[in-house]
């Protein structure tokens, strides 16, 4: 794996995968640590982008367009998820003006 080199730029494939792994982990830490629901959403977007980078890197390694096609679908689903998720946040904030996930306990009452 370490000897695999991207044909166009001479950067080893493993570099891209390492960046992807780091970004995914940072996104995970963001989801776990933050209490602002908007930042949690942004961290989830970051995780999806990290996966996109890995998909494109593997596609480039294996001379396949499947990775790039998958990324198109991931972007589509991310856009749909963001619009629905933000609509849910708007509805939530109308009920109770907070974005703190520990305060959102309407279902518990």
């Amino acid at each position: 794996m370490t000897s695999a080199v991207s044909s166009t730029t001479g950067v080893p494939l493993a570099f891209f995968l390492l960046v992807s792994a780091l970004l995914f982990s940072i996104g995970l830490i963001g989801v776990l640590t933050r209490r602002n629901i908007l930042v949690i959403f942004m961290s989830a977007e970051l995780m999806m982008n990290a996966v996109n980078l890995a998909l494109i890197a593997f596609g480039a390694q294996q001379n396949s367009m499947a990775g790039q096609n998958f990324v198109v679908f991931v972007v589509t689903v991310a856009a749909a998820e963001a619009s629905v998720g933000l609509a849910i946040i708007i509805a939530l904030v109308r009920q109770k003006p907070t974005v703190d996930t520990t305060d959102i306990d309407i279902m518990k009452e």
Partner: protein
Amino acid sequence: MEINLFGVTVPIPPVGQLVFLPVAGLAVIAALMMITRRDAVHSALWLVVTFFQLAIMYVMLGAEFLAVLQVLVYTGAILVLFLFVIMLLNLREGPKLGGVHVAQMITAWPVGLLLAVEIATVILFSRTPSQANIGDLIGNERIVFSTAHILELGGNVQALGQTLYTQFLFPFEVASLILLLAVLGAIVLARKEEPAEVEEILPSLGISLGRRSVAHSPQEDQIEKKLLPAMGVKYAPDAMVGEGSREVPLVEQPSGIGKGTTSGVEVDPGR
């Protein structure tokens, strides 16, 4: 490649690596800034930086179309949507970092870093063929898109389009449905429910909220004043919506319309 710098030969890394290292470093730093800012707007702006660096990496991997898509969809649409929501709802000052969840913080960081180390170990020590053709592995030559083949087709966009509309046609259609549903879902969820609107819908479902005064049309007034007495039905303006309207079979206007409903469905006659 090497360069002679004051008598010392220094190796120059390939141009790709010279571009890659700052780009990757900035992407990771911006991501770290994103998850540590308290202000949600600052978080969103740092995320924009990360997404731009990712777009540069896509270009380096030969995915030019997706780089454009990244800038247009992610930074242009999704993050602008985030900023709209943050600013319209006035949510800039979020909850404090840490706070009651200090235990969560000190658990999450080691867990995340452990995950990073694990993935990095797998990447660095796995043994896969250095340059495999997925088409060779599964015995299908049509899906091999080497650089030469892509150039022959005309470029990355052509190659992507060709696969998207042949191999991935069904998922492509499903993706359009997902987008349609997302549009509908966003409208339904974010719409403000007006009490008056609910009141209008309820009678059509057979639920009455008591008498409402609905302005009658001139034709209805005529029917009430002239036609009904001629047919022997007692004329009582307020009782019209009740049983009276059911006993007018000769009148062409169907019962119910304009007499208390908006949808043409009959009002519950028992009220």
